[in-house]
């Protein structure tokens, strides 16, 4: 008897392989490849006067060394600007190899191809580049001041200036009984997957075909980019994404220079070529995110109800804008959270700096927006002397107000219309889960022991499952096994498991008989990619629809074979039978044989099929409106994103002497619509929360004034170990299914990270009685804040 698997904590099919060391990550693919290594800029801003590679080819084992001058055609043009936007008036992208100027430490200047990585790195050390140094622009403030320019032809360092408004925010604020002006500062962090970037390519000279394996979040994107840059037809290029050791956003940007250069090298040298990034390279030549400065003007009434919100922010975009404005657009539109903001205006400048490019990192601008909105809510509560939860409550969008239109254009170019949710119920749940109403007695109890604690909460809404589409192909073999392909890629989210649950439910086949392939353009050429918490929504829906189509064909053929009405048939455990008459049945595998009027019988399934006959004898064996095979293919393309939501609450302890910050309790309430596999969803939340804690307390990119990244290693970039995360994360779910897709799914991948900084800042502020406006915050920074606050506050009691 089949039971529904949707909503079940099914253990992962991926794991056995991965636990035995049988995973196949890109660097594990052994083609006897040559190794490519990259000469990178040691300077943040410089003109290249000359490059001397003479000493390199003398090294035994070196096959090639190339600079910009060795590139031609489209390869010599700048890399694509993937997502143009009307307000991105000064978009700039780098060249695969720097032409005459470098704009960040780490920018690719030349490549060497050698027998192995050791020799390739020796050769890299022999390349001599003559630079004319230029002043570096580092940090938002320097970019905004624009005393120096990153790109000569970009005035003010402004790549984009965007204004969105819904109503007259200025008038709303002016008329409001109370107003506040606030400033916030968020620093850079980065995705830091445990596996860096990597790519391997093989050129088949005889057939003129290129195969590329790359650690990416979009196989189809890389395929299109490589084909365009190398002047190949799309059908000459296969891109296969093997196991990927984490992505978190950084691997959605493409094509990386190395993806193009490895492909080019494979083609030129006629031998497989690979590039495997090392950790330092990942720090200085992939991508970062998060850094923004915000200024908020807000007006509100006596209850804390928002009457006008005007946000101005400055986004550090790094040296180039290959991924467009997704991050600042997310920050500006998702800032509003679960609230009715009243008239809202948001203006941002996206600014160039001589630092590593900025592309989405899990949350993709939402953590910053959430930080600003939630800190604003706390500031209003402090100003009015009200409970922070109560101020939020009066502003919440109510359950009967969905769909709720914010009047803003989201990152996918569609309206920011919330499809469903129940924020009031969520607030109640998080208060209960963290013990909000009992906290004052806990605080007093701890104070009696000389301990200082604080509590904070933060809410977010996350647009997930952005379009344009994903597709799926379901193929039932004559063995009865079901082979499913969807084009987006996997980086550890358990897609093989979750998607198989969907197929098993829809088709009525054993879970074990379903095999899911992701990220292989040979199997599914039409796909977009894994980002914006979209895989479950997009591919999950597409797979459901494709399985439905396959099922329709199964039932049509089976009804013919069994001489029964399709309505009377059921599929259970891979067998189609007449309801109430289990003896009248046919295996799915047999139906697959019948679907294909092949001339040759060569297996047991074919023999078994001979007792049945299907099709109209008066028509051709394959009818005009039919095709051979038992397959289903479909695409899912939603009108707009679906909006997931959640609230986090945190209790922290701060050491009165050392200012050490310890998280005592971390609580999460989470609504991602219909849950496919709660074990996987909770795992996603855990990981997100840990990254949120990293961003709040530990992680930052320490650039010096000259644009050198001083902490480009795991020794100095403080990513949380187990010792930095709380011992437990309390999770409660709320399920408000999305009306936009057949399964009611909303995305869950990014959610866990979004409110971390906001909630932790609120808790520290509550413990310390001084405003926390910048993240991350280290113990020494808190110590310093205490000192400043003690000096600045003549009557310390007033601010408490």
């Amino acid at each position, binding site marked *: 008897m089949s039971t529904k698997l949707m909503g079940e*904590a099914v253990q992962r099919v991926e794991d056995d392989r991965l636990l035995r060391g049988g995973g196949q990550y890109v660097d594990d693919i052994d083609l006897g490849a040559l190794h490519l290594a990259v000469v990178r800029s040691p300077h943040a801003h410089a003109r290249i006067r000359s490059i001397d590679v003479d000493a390199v080819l003398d090294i035994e084992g070196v096959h090639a060394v190339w600079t910009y001058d060795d590139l031609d055609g489209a390869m010599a043009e700048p890399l694509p600007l993937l997502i143009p936007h009307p307000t991105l008036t000064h978009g700039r992208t780098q060249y695969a190899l720097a032409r005459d100027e470098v704009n960040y430490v780490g920018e690719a200047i030349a490549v060497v191809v050698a027998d*192995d990585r050791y020799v390739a790195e020796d050769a890299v050390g022999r390349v001599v580049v003559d630079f004319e140094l230029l002043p570096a622009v580092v940090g938002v403030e320097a970019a905004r001041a624009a005393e120096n320019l990153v790109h000569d032809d970009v005035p003010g360092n402004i790549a984009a200036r965007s204004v969105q408004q819904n109503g007259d925010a200025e008038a709303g604020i002016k008329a409001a009984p109370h107003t506040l002006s606030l400033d916030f500062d968020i620093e850079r962090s980065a995705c830091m997957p445990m596996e860096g970037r990597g790519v391997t390519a093989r050129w088949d000279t005889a057939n003129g075909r290129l195969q590329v394996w790359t650690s990416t979040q979009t196989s189809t994107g890389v395929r299109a980019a490589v084909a365009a840059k190398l002047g190949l037809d799309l059908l000459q290029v296969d891109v296969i994404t093997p196991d990927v*050791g984490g992505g978190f956003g950084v691997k959605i940007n493409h094509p990386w220079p190395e993806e193009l250069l490895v492909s080019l090298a494979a083609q030129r040298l006629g031998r497989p070529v690979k590039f495997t990034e090392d950790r330092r390279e990942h720090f200085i030549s992939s991508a970062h995110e998060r850094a923004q400065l915000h200024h908020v003007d807000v007006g509100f009434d006596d209850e804390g109800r928002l009457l006008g919100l005007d946000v101005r922010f400055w986004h550090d975009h790094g040296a180039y804008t290959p991924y467009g404005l997704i991050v600042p657009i997310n920050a500006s539109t998702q800032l509003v959270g679960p609230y009715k903001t009243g008239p809202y205006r948001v203006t941002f400048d996206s600014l160039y700096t001589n630092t590593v490019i900025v592309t989405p990192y899990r949350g993709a601008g939402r953590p910053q927006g959430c930080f600003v909105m939630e800190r604003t809510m706390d500031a209003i509560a402090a100003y009015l002397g009200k409970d922070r939860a109560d101020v939020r409550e009066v502003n919440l969008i109510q359950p009967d107000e969905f769909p709720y239109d914010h009047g803003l254009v989201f990152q996918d170019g569609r309206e920011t219309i919330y499809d469903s949710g129940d924020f009031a119920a969520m607030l109640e749940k998080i208060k209960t889960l963290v013990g909000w109403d009992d906290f004052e007695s806990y605080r007093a109890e701890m104070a009696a022991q000389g301990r200082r604690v604080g509590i904070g909460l933060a809410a977010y809404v996350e647009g997930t499952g952005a379009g344009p589409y994903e597709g799926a192909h379901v193929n039932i073999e004559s063995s009865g096994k079901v082979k499913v392909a969807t084009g987006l890629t996997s980086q550890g989210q358990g897609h093989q498991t979750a998607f198989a649950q969907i197929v098993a439910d829809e088709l009525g086949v054993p879970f074990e008989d379903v095999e899911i392939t992701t990220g292989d353009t040979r199997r599914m050429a039409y796909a977009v990619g894994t980002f914006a918490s979209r895989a479950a929504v997009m591919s999950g829906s597409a797979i459901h629809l494709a399985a439905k189509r396959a099922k329709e064909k199964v039932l049509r053929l089976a009804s013919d074979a069994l001489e029964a009405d399709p309505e009377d048939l059921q599929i259970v455990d891979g067998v189609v039978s007449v309801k109430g008459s289990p003896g009248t049945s046919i295996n799915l595998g047999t139906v697959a044989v019948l679907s294909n009027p092949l001339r040759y019988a060569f297996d047991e399934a074919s023999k078994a099929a001979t007792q049945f006959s299907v099709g109209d004898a008066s028509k051709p064996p394959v009818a005009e409106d039919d095709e051979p095979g038992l397959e289903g293919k479909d695409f899912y393309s939603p009108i707009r994103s679906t909006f997931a939501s959640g609230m986090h609450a945190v209790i922290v302890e701060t050491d009165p002497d050392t200012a050490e910050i310890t998280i005592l309790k971390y609580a999460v309430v989470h609504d991602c619509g219909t849950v496919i596999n709660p074990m996987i969803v909770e795992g996603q939340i855990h990981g997100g929360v840990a990254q949120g804690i990293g961003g709040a307390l530990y992680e930052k990119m320490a650039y010096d004034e000259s644009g050198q990244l001083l902490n480009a290693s795991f020794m100095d970039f403080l990513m949380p170990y187990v*010792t930095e*995360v709380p011992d437990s994360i309390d999770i409660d779910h709320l399920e408000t299914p999305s009306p936009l897709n057949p399964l009611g799914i909303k995305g869950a991948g990014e959610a866990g990270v979004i409110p971390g900084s906001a909630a932790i800042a609120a808790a520290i502020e509550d413990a310390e009685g001084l405003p926390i406006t910048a993240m991350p915050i280290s113990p020494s920074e808190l110590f310093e804040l205490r000192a400043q606050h003690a000096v600045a506050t003549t009557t310390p009691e007033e601010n408490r």
Partner: protein
Amino acid sequence: MAENTAEKIHDVRLEVNGVTHAVAVPARRLLSDALRQECGLTGTHVGCEHGVCGACTVLVDGRPVRSCLMFAVTAAGSEITTVEGLAEPDGSLNPAQQAFRECHGLQCGFCTPGFLTTVTAGIKENPCPTHEEAREMVAGNLCRCTGYQNIVKAVERAAEIARGDAPAAGPPDGDDGGLEAATGDTEVARKDDASTTGLGA
């Protein structure tokens, strides 16, 4: 004219997972690279190449060692165990591997081999870790996916399995084709699904 920059090559016998690999490597070749390339054992992953992340951890004479901080030539004469060598002689998963699977202690799987070697050695040294000791056991390994919650559970569960006080193996109802589904809650999944006979095995 190629410059004669060839390095001196050393012939080394590496004993890995009970098999002798005769490899020819320059002195500077890292053990991690030799295992991955010369021995073809790509289960050992390289996450940082400076000894901080722990992904490349292997057992050298039973003790966890960062293979990116050891030269291959130094490892000659030692018994090396990589993730490929952790499974039981009958091919079933060892307690650490079983526990990581049951507890959803891995997502992308890249850091996992380093955790598994570390925990395999750790529970041998300390078969009854307290909760704090379980956390301490994995405190030198980085994972970016899991937030460590289920990894700590897996350490405790691995010790439990190794001690033999695991709940009876096998799916609860015995005839669901090895499908290990629990109802709606990972706690249940973790406690009930002790089977090693399930999916993908």
